[in-house]
């Protein structure tokens, strides 16, 4: 790969977001943030991005409640969620697994219903993370028809592959495999069953133009809000990114 894994993933997320109007990025999500800032560089400032933890110039003037209120008003098109465990029904678990305690559910149980599209994102792709059934449902991947729900999962992106969510079938479909992995590798490291085409495409890498942006203006804004992350990703690439 001619790019960092984080750059590949950000490019992939940017394509998933597409032409959304307003994307919100929650706690500790530097790669989704990279994706949105990349899109904004390419699309003259669209989509609008609201970084929950933006250190200066935070987009919310009423405090942390406002993100959830905006989602409830239908003003958030895309949001991101991860999971200590994610299962084949797109349920996510952020609380506890195998005797281990994780930080907690954050706003997932709400945002998964209220944001129009949720992109599930977890770099670790293993049998430990991608399980048949989560031990604790922080937020359910689907809801019975009587439950009002304005949005849900559209995709699951990991360090090995991209799955798309099939709402009617309530199953993931393998969409592409990243460089360095393979359909077999993905199958062997995924604890839930999913659909897959006979021939699985390879996840496209960012274009040269996209890489220039990622390592330039995107790296600068990421560095302001996720300094450790930026140092790790771009620190190794001499001459790019924040000092």
């Amino acid at each position, binding site marked *: 790969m001619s790019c960092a894994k984080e750059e590949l993933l950000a490019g992939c997320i940017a394509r998933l977001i597409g032409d959304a109007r307003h994307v919100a990025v929650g706690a500790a999500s530097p790669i989704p943030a990279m994706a949105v800032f990349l899109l904004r560089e390419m699309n003259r400032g669209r989509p609008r991005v609201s970084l929950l*933890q933006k250190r200066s110039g935070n987009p*919310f003037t009423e405090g*942390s409640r*406002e993100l959830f209120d905006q989602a409830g008003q239908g003003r958030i098109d895309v949001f991101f969620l991860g999971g200590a465990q994610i299962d084949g029904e797109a349920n996510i678990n952020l609380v506890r697994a195998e005797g281990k305690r994780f*930080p907690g559910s954050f706003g997932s149980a709400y945002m998964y219903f*209220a944001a129009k599209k949720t992109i599930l994102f977890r770099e670790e792709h293993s049998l430990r993370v991608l399980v048949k059934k989560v031990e604790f*449902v922080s937020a359910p991947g689907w*809801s019975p028809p009587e439950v009002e729900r304005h949005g849900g999962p559209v995709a699951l992106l990991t360090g090995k592959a991209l799955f798309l969510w099939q709402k009617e079938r309530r199953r993931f479909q393998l969409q592409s495999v990243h460089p360095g992995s393979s359909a077999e590798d993905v199958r062997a490291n995924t604890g839930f069953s999913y659909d897959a085409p006979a021939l699985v495409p390879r996840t496209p890498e960012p274009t040269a133009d996209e890489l220039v942006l990622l390592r330039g203006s995107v790296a600068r804004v990421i560095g302001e809000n996720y300094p*450790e992350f930026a140092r790790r990703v771009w620190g190794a690439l001499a001459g790019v990114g924040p000092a």
Partner: protein
Amino acid sequence: MSALPANETRFLAGADALAREIPDGACIGLPPDYSPVAMAVVRALVRRGAKDLKLLGVPVLGLCADILIGAGCVREVETSAVTLGEAGLAQRFTAAAESGAVKIIDATCPMIHTGLQATEKGVPFLPLRGVLGSDLVKNHPDWKTIDNPYTTGDPILLAKAIVPDVALFHARWADEAGNVWVGRRGELATIAHASQACYVSFEELKRGDMLEDELLAPGCISSVYVTAVAPAPRGAWPLGVPGAYGIDDAHLQLYARLAKTAAGFQQYLDEFVLQPVSA
């Protein structure tokens, strides 16, 4: 606990004096790490050996909770998450949760806001969409699913009103009238409105009454809600105060490294908490 309504904000000498006002066993509403946390008061609580506290994360918790838990001050935590953000897991929280030393009530951010808004409005509950089907609902003692009374076959979740004994946070400014300025950190206002008592450490004192100033007033929490304030310059350190100073990321990394073990955490306490710090 002082009885409502608070009326005349008391001015105390400093963080230790504020910490003495917060009794053992109190339920304390606390903001996240990116909203000014009264870290100097948190350290003072550890120094005074506070016990059996219940921490309420509005809506999540970070460093302050990890320190209070690690120091044995906490009986129970209700929160949507405890995290050190980029510095990683809150290790003392994790250890206490895994050993069962501290009771954890798991929530989700907007349900905590909603429960506090219920108290803010003086109502016994408020509804919220979503959340249904989450195991959080099964486990939470105060949430209830009802049918939307305006239609049929439309289940909706209710948050019971949350009434913290104490709101505790740090403000950029306090003024001579006892108002405090927290800018856009609206969760601090929500905690203050909903709590029986409100203690605020502040960075700097402003002369006069900020409510008379149209530019400052929108970021103020009126002294109506404020029980007592005390000066604590750099009182949010190692966390930040927007517009004044940023998060000390290096110190958070140091903390995260030490807090991986009980011994390392004790070393952190000895160095940065149990000796009053002038950082």
